């Protein structure tokens, strides 16, 4: 199967390496948990600029929620997956599985 370029049925917001990695990291958190921007950046080994760009695209799609707050007068940015984001991620994985060649039937 030569699946090159934007594949039909695959969410283009998620189907890009960097954003896919962001989604995987956020989906790995306990439901309802939020992660700070620097910890997420460290988790993914991404530059701050690169991560911001991709987070903005994910936020525009409604997949992530970005909360800016203060802790001891220092600004802190928290990132978390939204419920539509989690659903989109699960749909994306289900769509990928459908694109795989069918597995061998046992005994066939």
């Amino acid at each position, binding site marked *: 199967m030569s699946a090159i370029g934007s594949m039909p049925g695959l969410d283009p917001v998620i189907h890009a*390496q960097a954003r896919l990695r962001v989604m995987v990291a956020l989906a790995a958190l306990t439901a309802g948990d939020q992660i700070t921007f*620097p910890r997420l950046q460290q988790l993914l080994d991404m530059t701050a*600029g690169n991560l911001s760009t991709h987070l903005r695209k994910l936020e525009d799609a409604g997949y992530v929620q970005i909360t800016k707050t203060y802790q001891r007068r220092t600004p802190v940015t928290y990132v978390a997956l939204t419920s539509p984001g989690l659903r989109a991620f699960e749909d994306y994985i289900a769509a990928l599985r459908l694109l795989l060649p069918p597995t061998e039937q046992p005994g066939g």
Partner: protein
Amino acid sequence: MSADETGARLDEDSPLSAEESLALIERQQREVHRRLGVNVALFYGPWGAAYLLGFGAIFLTYPTAVAVRLPAAVAIAITVVLFASAVVITAVTGARAGRGLRGPSQAAGAMYGWSWGLGFCALGVVNTGVTRLGLPDDAVTLLWSGSSLLLVGVLYLGGGALFQDRFQYGLGAWMLLSGAVSVFAGVPGNFAVVALAGGGGLLLAAGYFALRPPRPRP
């Protein structure tokens, strides 16, 4: 700099096949679990060492079948240093685990951490209060070793339930059993039971968690 950025972007945005995409998801999931995961062995190893060597040293201050005899001061020094180190290592590991995270898992973890401190404060008050009424020395010793292991066991049962970890729950049951047996072993046998069964169980748990691959958070 802009050339670098373009290069990185081209590479990152290069299209993925379904297979590549699924492989990337799996790789990234493993990496995230590894980096977010706590080194759980650090919650058990230092305590196992403290139980085994600390209570083992106290056991050796009594005249027993073992040929070695330790002065009480040495045994107490070993025990205090090892237990203080275990408290520090556990507290630092626990605090580091939540770095950069907030939400329900952090609240649950903090409450669980505090249950250890609260539980042992209450245990100290109760045991001291009972002891003040006048108990034989051996009874005081057995009261402390038995009740401490009982509390440790119950807290591991709770931890197993909270973190959905059957192994930790099993360790809790083992500590309850060790605590009960220690009381019937008498003095100084109770110290041998706490050191070998309690400390040994904790060290086995540390080994198990060191070898177990990182798991997703519940």
